[in-house]
């Protein structure tokens, strides 16, 4: 240690340290322009001159590079020094009179104009740029010349070949003097951020995006200067955790696994190939992904939509659909990408929210494909907001010269050519499988189809051509997020079901040491303050907070850590708990929502009950929000610690609450979804009670002929039925329904119509749906030649006379669906009708087949059916709700009149057979909905708790849904959902016990007089009134259902007598926090 004095104050430093370092550490500010903590000091700017008295005389030295020595005496702020610094700044101002940085500096020294002749420079010769270049491991620039000719220059005054365009010199230059184009011979541009699709740059060391897992930075070797020059490593120097290791090498890790799931996902279509759309050539043509990032409040434009050409708010935006999809031209894909219609509608709605309701939006589309649950309602909402929808495939987008605008020329359905001008054009680009997936598939030996999607059988939707390898997501075909998430669960079920016998064989049971009894111990609080790197310590005075904590009543120990949550800190805290016999722990760091569980586990590892813990949120609630007020932040941190300690003093250990899990499932519904689910749960090793109201299994699938890919359905269903019947884990209850149920997740008891009581841990609802029979509509039920699609299937399969003889067949789509009474799309009928049309054409190509539709929704790879039908001569006529087809009997045939969308006039077709694609309606689920508290949507389908993240979970824990009772869907989705629900069920059934939170309500019998005020406000129906005997008298109190209670405390707030409390949030604890917050304790 070297001791000396600065401004008469005793300070200490390590040998070899420079004066400036020690001064700054002691809070003594010395001005400097050329100093930077990551660079060797150079003493160039002279602003850091200080007075040094060495015992004999006073001289001036530069603080930044003057090594300290014992006994020296320093003055940093004398009148003489101020005059010298002022002169230096004045000279700089005469050299760089226009540089804002220098002007601001001059102002702080009270200089308005220099007394000397001014030059026109903006370089202050601090040398930061040349030194950082050297640190990076390069020497593309240096200070050249002497005296007044000194300047930053490149070798031979030519643009440097050696420059790697890292940009460090530009970033560090305080005045903006350094420009990369003056220095480098090479082109340069920011490294495009993959997440922001190139709309923003990123660094060579970066966290890919805010939600990345793990959320730790990675180094891009191709861009990192260290891997180019061997120098730099600044990141390793500044990382307080010392976590950066440039020597780390890629490793090959071998894993032994029983199953493999492929979920390699998609890439976006690159629209640059379609030259007519000007993507990449015109700044105001962008992709929907780029627009999405622009819309995002956390994106590079902070949610502000603007034109890239001039930054102006667009007033008129066009979306062009099917870019790269539904086409064979210019590298496009023949299939429908499925997700872009909804994405475009969403973008029109959100753009209007951002830019105001007068924003004009136009979507150019061929068919609007909004076929998933609640999507059609969203489509209606978008239309009501006034967005224009134009049915036209855009041919060309042209620039309007001198304006940044874009002109779109298009042809309407009636053949009229139109043109319109827009401020911004968004291309709805489709999805495709990356080429690298082809290599992966080849290495794994799994088959890909012609569009590079993995070949998955409709009847085994998450299996691949190789046993043991499963797949989900867009890898097997274009699909939206809800379906992808459901498939992920399905793949998990299939992959784990096959190897269920091995469950738990590689687990290690986590054990905790015996818990120390703290009941008779005096309270000894330990306070651990986190610096969180510089997130807390860089703003607040952490040592002062620790000192403050030590002074608080009952605090036995306090300490700070660089990162309290790191493994070594946790070990240290555990050691301190033991050494100092601490029995209440406060960690002052970040938010309990992210870190409480980690620290509670630490307490258990230390032998303490996990509820003897309290957090003070001094980062998220304090230092991050008061970055520029270090003193106030420090004070607030102290207060927050005091509040936490006040509560900690009163904390009691709580008993852990567990609930036993009944390892059986109840499946309601014996259709395909229910049976697949039951089998999958049985495969996982759990018992199943399968309840079907009919006397036979099979459901609607028995009526189906083939999947859209052509796999015969009936043999599959029959095989599933056989497997269910033969499975000894599945108990069948045919001809039965569920009458009532009680209990909660893990512990349900359901009573069937035959009086049987079934205990089960979870339930899967798979009650199916049925075809809507609109008797009389379009002569259905009145004319034998009018039939619904399922009946037509039977006739085609049986090659009936009617079908054989029919010369003209007409299909009418959306019968009873997509109308105000049933505002949803059935998802399957477009493909179904087109399949049947193809079958009719196969029987006899001379048959005339017409399909009257509203939007042709042959989504995904089903588009190939639509393309093939057109090729075979099937005629498609689009009708609208304003002009519904008219159907009447004429000459023994059925006459259909419809307004043709191209001719714009009515045409009449005399048909021999009329097939109606009728709506799919749910069975009456109201009783089940009541029994298991599962909500129904307006149309009577079961409601999931979250459409995207939990698409098959109901709002009641432990109740799941699968198949048509959730929404109309094709059989492959019902099968996948059967598996998926089984997977969700297994997450509960595989646990023997469920761990519950102990911070729940607890009656105080001596205060409670049984007034029952609290029972009604409880949102979870967790309270009930009970009577008990005490001293020969009947008394009343409430009882808490420990599993239902979520600890919300509505009861505590309602009780006028303190007769019920929430453990861990008692009135006494909250009251102590209030008093501490007010500085009273």
């Amino acid at each position: 240690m070297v001791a000396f004095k600065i401004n008469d104050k005793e300070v200490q430093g390590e040998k070899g340290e420079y004066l400036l370092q020690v001064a700054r550490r002691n809070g003594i500010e010395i001005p400097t322009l050329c100093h930077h903590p990551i660079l060797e000091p150079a003493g160039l700017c002279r602003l850091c001159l200080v007075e040094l008295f060495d015992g004999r005389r006073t001289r001036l030295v530069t603080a930044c590079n003057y090594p300290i020595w014992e006994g020296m005496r320093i003055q940093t702020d004398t009148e003489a020094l101020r005059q010298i610094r002022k002169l230096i700044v004045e000279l700089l101002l005469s050299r760089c009179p226009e540089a804002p940085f220098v002007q601001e500096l001059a102002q702080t020294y009270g200089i308005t104009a220099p007394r000397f002749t001014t030059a026109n420079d903006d370089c202050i010769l601090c040398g930061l740029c040349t030194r950082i270049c050297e640190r990076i491991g390069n020497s593309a620039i240096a200070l050249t010349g002497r005296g007044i000719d000194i300047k930053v220059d490149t070798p031979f005054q030519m643009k440097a070949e050696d420059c790697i365009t890292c940009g460090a010199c530009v970033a560090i230059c305080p005045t903006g003097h350094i420009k990369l184009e003056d220095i480098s011979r090479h082109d340069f541009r920011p490294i495009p951020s993959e997440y922001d699709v190139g709309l923003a740059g990123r660094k060579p060391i970066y966290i890919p995006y805010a939600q990345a897992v793990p959320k730790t930075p990675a180094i891009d070797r191709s861009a990192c200067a260290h891997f180019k020059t061997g120098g730099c490593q600044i990141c390793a120097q500044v990382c307080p955790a010392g976590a950066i290791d440039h020597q780390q090498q890629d490793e090959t890790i071998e894993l032994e696994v029983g199953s493999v799931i492929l979920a390699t996902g998609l890439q976006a279509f690159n629209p640059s190939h379609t030259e007519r759309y000007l993507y990449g050539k015109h700044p105001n043509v962008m992709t929907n992904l780029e627009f999405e990032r622009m819309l995002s409040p956390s994106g590079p434009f902070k949610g502000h939509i603007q034109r890239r050409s001039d930054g102006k708010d667009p007033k008129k935006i066009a979306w062009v659909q099917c870019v790269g999809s539904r086409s064979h031209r210019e590298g496009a894909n023949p299939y429908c990408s499925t997700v872009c219609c909804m994405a475009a509608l969403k973008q029109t709605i959100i753009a209007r929210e951002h830019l105001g309701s007068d924003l004009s939006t136009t979507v150019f589309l061929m068919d609007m494909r909004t076929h998933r649950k609640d999507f059609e309602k969203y489509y209606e909402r978008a239309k009501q907001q006034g967005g224009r929808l134009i049915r036209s495939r855009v041919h060309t987008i042209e620039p309007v010269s001198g304006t940044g605008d874009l002109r779109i020329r298009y042809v309407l359905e009636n053949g009229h050519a139109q043109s319109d001008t827009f401020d911004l054009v968004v291309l709805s680009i489709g999805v495709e499988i990356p080429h690298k997936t082809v290599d992966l598939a080849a290495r794994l030996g799994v088959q890909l189809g012609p569009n590079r999607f993995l070949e998955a059988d409709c009847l085994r939707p998450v299996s691949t051509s190789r046993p043991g390898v499963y797949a989900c997501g867009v890898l097997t075909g274009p699909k939206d997020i809800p379906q992808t998430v459901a498939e992920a669960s399905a793949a998990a079920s299939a992959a784990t079901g096959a190897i269920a016998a091995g469950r738990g064989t590689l687990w290690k049971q986590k054990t905790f040491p015996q818990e120390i009894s703290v009941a008779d111990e005096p309270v000894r609080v330990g306070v651990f303050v986190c610096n969180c790197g510089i997130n807390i310590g860089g703003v607040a005075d952490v040592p002062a907070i620790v000192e403050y904590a030590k002074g608080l009543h009952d605090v036995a120990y306090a300490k700070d850590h660089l990162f309290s949550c790191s493994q070594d800190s946790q070990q240290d805290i555990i050691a301190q708990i033991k050494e100092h016999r601490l029995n209440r722990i406060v960690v002052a760091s970040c938010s309990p929502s992210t870190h409480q569980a980690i620290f509670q586990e630490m307490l258990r590892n230390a032998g303490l009950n996990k509820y003897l813990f309290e957090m003070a949120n001094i980062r998220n609630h304090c230092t991050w929000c008061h970055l520029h007020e270090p003193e106030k932040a420090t004070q607030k941190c102290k207060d927050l610690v005091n509040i936490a300690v006040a509560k900690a003093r009163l904390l009691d250990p709580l008993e852990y609450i567990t609930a036993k899990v009944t390892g059986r499932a109840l499946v309601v519904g014996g259709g395909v979804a229910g049976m697949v689910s039951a089998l999958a749960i049985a495969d996982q090793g759990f018992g199943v009670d399968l309840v079907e109201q009919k006397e036979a299994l099979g459901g609607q699938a028995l009526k189906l002929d083939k999947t859209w890919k052509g796999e015969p359905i009936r043999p599959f269903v029959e095989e599933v039925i056989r497997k269910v019947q033969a499975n000894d884990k599945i108990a069948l209850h045919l001809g039965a329904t569920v009458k009532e149920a009680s209990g909660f997740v893990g512990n349900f008891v359901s009573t069937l119509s035959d009086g049987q009581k079934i205990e089960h841990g979870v339930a899967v609802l798979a009650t199916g749906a049925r075809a809507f029979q609109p008797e009389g509509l379009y002569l259905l039920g009145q004319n034998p030649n009018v039939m619904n699609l399922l009946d037509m299937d039977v006739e085609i399969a049986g090659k009936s006379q009617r079908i054989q003889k029919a010369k003209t067949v007409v299909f009418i789509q959306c019968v009873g669906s997509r109308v105000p009474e049933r505002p949803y799309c059935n998802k399957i009928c477009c493909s179904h009708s087109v399949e049947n049309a193809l079958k009719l054409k196969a029987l006899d190509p001379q048959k005339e087949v017409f399909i009257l539709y509203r939007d042709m929704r042959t989504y995904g790879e089903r588009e190939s059916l639509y393309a093939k039908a057109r090729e075979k001569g099937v005629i498609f006529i689009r009708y609208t709700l304003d002009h519904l087809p008219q159907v009447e009997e004429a000459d023994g045939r059925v006459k259909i009149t419809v307004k043709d969308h191209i001719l714009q006039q009515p045409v009449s077709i005399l048909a021999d057979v009329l097939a109606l694609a009728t709506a799919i309606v749910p069975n009456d689920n109201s009783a089940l909905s009541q029994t298991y508290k599962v909500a129904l949507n307006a149309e009577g389908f079961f409601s999931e708790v979250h459409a995207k993240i939990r698409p098959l979970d109901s709002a009641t824990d432990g109740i799941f849904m699968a198949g048509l009772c959730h929404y109309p869907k094709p059989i492959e989705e019902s099968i996948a959902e059967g598996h998926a629900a089984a997977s969700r069920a297994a997450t509960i059934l595989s646990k023997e016990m469920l761990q519950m939170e102990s911070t729940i309500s607890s009656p105080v019998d001596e205060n409670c007089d049984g007034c029952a005020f609290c029972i009604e406000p409880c949102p979870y129906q967790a309270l009930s009134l009970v009577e008990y005997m005490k001293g020969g008298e009947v008394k009343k109190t409430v009882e808490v259902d420990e599993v239902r209670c979520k600890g919300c405390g509505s009861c505590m707030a309602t009780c006028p007598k303190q007769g019920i409390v929430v453990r861990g949030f008692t009135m006494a604890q909250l009251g102590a926090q209030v008093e501490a917050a007010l500085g009273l304790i």
Partner: protein
Amino acid sequence: MSEQFEPLILAFCCNWCSYAGADLAGVARIQYPSNARIIRTMCSGMIHPNLVIDALTKGADGVLVCG
């Protein structure tokens, strides 16, 4: 001149919404005055009226119940 009045505000925040919102304000580095002291509750519904009255009578200049 007397010192400018700086109120002390007590905020009861629901663990699931407003407390998480205050966390997010930190993540977003939103700067706000340092006068508020947040007390975490599991629901705004657990805040007994007496807690609010106590706080005000004992010296809080404002009480915020957020949930």
